């Protein structure tokens, strides 16, 4: 975990000199936050692990006791689990490609000077501040509805016929909505990174005869690399937990076409009341998130150290 070399954290060498904390006992200052976080992360985590080896169904209190690995065994025999894992990962990967790719192009465009730049920037970041349930319903009803939606009207006008988004392309439709919400985030972070680019580098490239396309690929793109990996890490954490957009638009359907792991656990736990099974799936969600997180943290750590 060497992610924070650039974040102003004390390096190990720096606090060897100050191990006492400057003679001030900071424990009472730090303890409440750390203690509460510890309780609120470890206790539910332990409970999830515990429930996952129990026979525990809220609808059937007669059934109980220790289940051992049975919840996991049933889960791994269930094709829905593997499909939901696929949906989770596909959602993350597709949204990441769209938001980081378009985010880089947009950041590069907004680094130039043009009239009304700050207003255009405000417009572009707006989707990030719209609550997930609202953005899902705007897209589902006002835009993507096959009869009355705006997009249906446009495609009909162009003679392309009507796309029934949530029936024919359910997962892609969810990806579009989520990407719309997260593109502003990627854009803002990449733009922040780009603004730290040395103006002289760009000028030198211009004097050497590099056009805007070349400047983008050979100067701006490498400069945004670290910020892009931070975007990937943060977005992955949030995108694995995508819930409201699915809940409001497709409810995981048609069939299980848009059921990601988060939605699967919600269904098992709060609709089917299968606490044991849902907890086992929860453990898998935690493992998946941690595999991705360590993988990404390591990738970012390497970049920060060089």
């Amino acid at each position, binding site marked *: 975990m060497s992610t924070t070399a650039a974040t102003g954290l004390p390096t190990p060498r720096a606090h060897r000199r100050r191990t006492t904390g400057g003679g001030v006992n900071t424990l009472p200052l730090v303890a409440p*936050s750390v203690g509460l976080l510890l309780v609120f992360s470890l206790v539910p985590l332990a409970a999830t692990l515990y429930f996952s080896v129990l026979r525990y169904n809220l609808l059937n209190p007669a059934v109980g006791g220790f289940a051992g690995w049975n919840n996991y065994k049933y889960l791994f025999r269930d094709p829905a689990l593997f499909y939901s894992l696929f949906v989770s990962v596909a959602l993350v990967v597709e949204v990441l490609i769209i938001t980081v790719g378009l985010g880089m192009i947009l950041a590069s465009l907004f680094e130039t000077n043009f009239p009304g730049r700050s207003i255009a920037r405000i417009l572009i970041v707006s989707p990030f501040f*719209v609550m997930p349930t*609202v953005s899902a319903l705007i897209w589902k009803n006002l835009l993507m509805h096959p009869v009355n939606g705006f997009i249906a009207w446009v495609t009909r006008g162009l003679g392309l016929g009507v796309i029934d988004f949530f029936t024919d392309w359910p997962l892609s439709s969810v990806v579009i909505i989520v990407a719309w919400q997260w593109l502003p985030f990627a854009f803002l972070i990449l733009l922040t990174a780009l603004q730290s680019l040395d103006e002289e580098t760009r000028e030198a490239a211009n004097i050497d005869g590099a056009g805007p396309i070349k400047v983008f690929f050979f100067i701006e793109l490498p400069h945004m690399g670290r910020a892009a990996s931070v975007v990937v890490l943060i977005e992955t954490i949030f995108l694995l937990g995508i*819930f409201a957009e699915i809940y409001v638009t497709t409810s995981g359907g048609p069939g299980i076409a848009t059921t990601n792991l*988060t939605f699967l656990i919600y269904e098992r736990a709060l609709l089917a009341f299968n606490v044991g099974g849902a907890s086992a799936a929860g453990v898998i969600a935690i493992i998946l998130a941690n595999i991705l997180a360590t993988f990404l943290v390591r990738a970012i750590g390497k970049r920060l150290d060089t």
Partner: protein
Amino acid sequence: MSMRSKTQPVAGSFAWLAALLMFFPIFWMILASFKTEVGAIATPPQLIFTPTLENYRDILGRADYLSFALNSVIVSFGATALAILLAVPAAFGMAFYPTARTRGTLLWMLSTKMLPPVGVLVPIYLFCRDVGLLDTRTALVIMYTMMNLPIVVWMLFTFFKEMPKAIIEASRIDGANVWQTIVHVLLPLVLPGIASTALLNIILSWNEAFWSLNLTAHDAAPLTAFIASFSAPEGLFWAKLSAASTMAIAPILVFGWISQRQLVRGLTFGAVK
């Protein structure tokens, strides 16, 4: 700066095109909120119409709308106040008196954000049910405080780090204790930092839609849950949905425009500046 000061019409046009496309869904929703229900679903879509305030009047006239809005306000401001209260001393201690544990503590806080909420949904749901916290604002305030505490500590830590250490030492020499130093010397200096941290925290809590959908039913349901109720097939009132949505996002949109910069700082844990 010579290049930046030169206007670039081609890049500018593309940037504006992208901005208008990105904003279009929000614009279209705001437009629909001023249409009649028939007008909102009309094909071809109405572009020129007589605006009506009927939808806003309807939504505001519903007794429950105000209770949903009130829940959103209480929960997001309450969770923010609590998180700031917990985080200010912690961030102060770690920024000004770092110990051998500080680095590890901060990284561990970051790591708690990697625990997926759904991984702990079952025990938290059952716990809330058993102690009678289901569908209460208290449950949401606690969850949101814990959810955002790492971000708040990190943001305040980076703000405190930028404060000159000499000021603290001077006030300590003058005989002020740690608490007096925080309240009388440091707080006035970092107030802008705390304000922007609070703003970001309010935005995140206001828009949160996992715990609010799972832990509330009606009494404590905030606007996120109220809007979700429009997804039911019998609730296809597009104009009213648009009016309710516009009111639900308007204050947060303005907050968001103000706090763009802090968003970068807070959500990347200071890794991008």
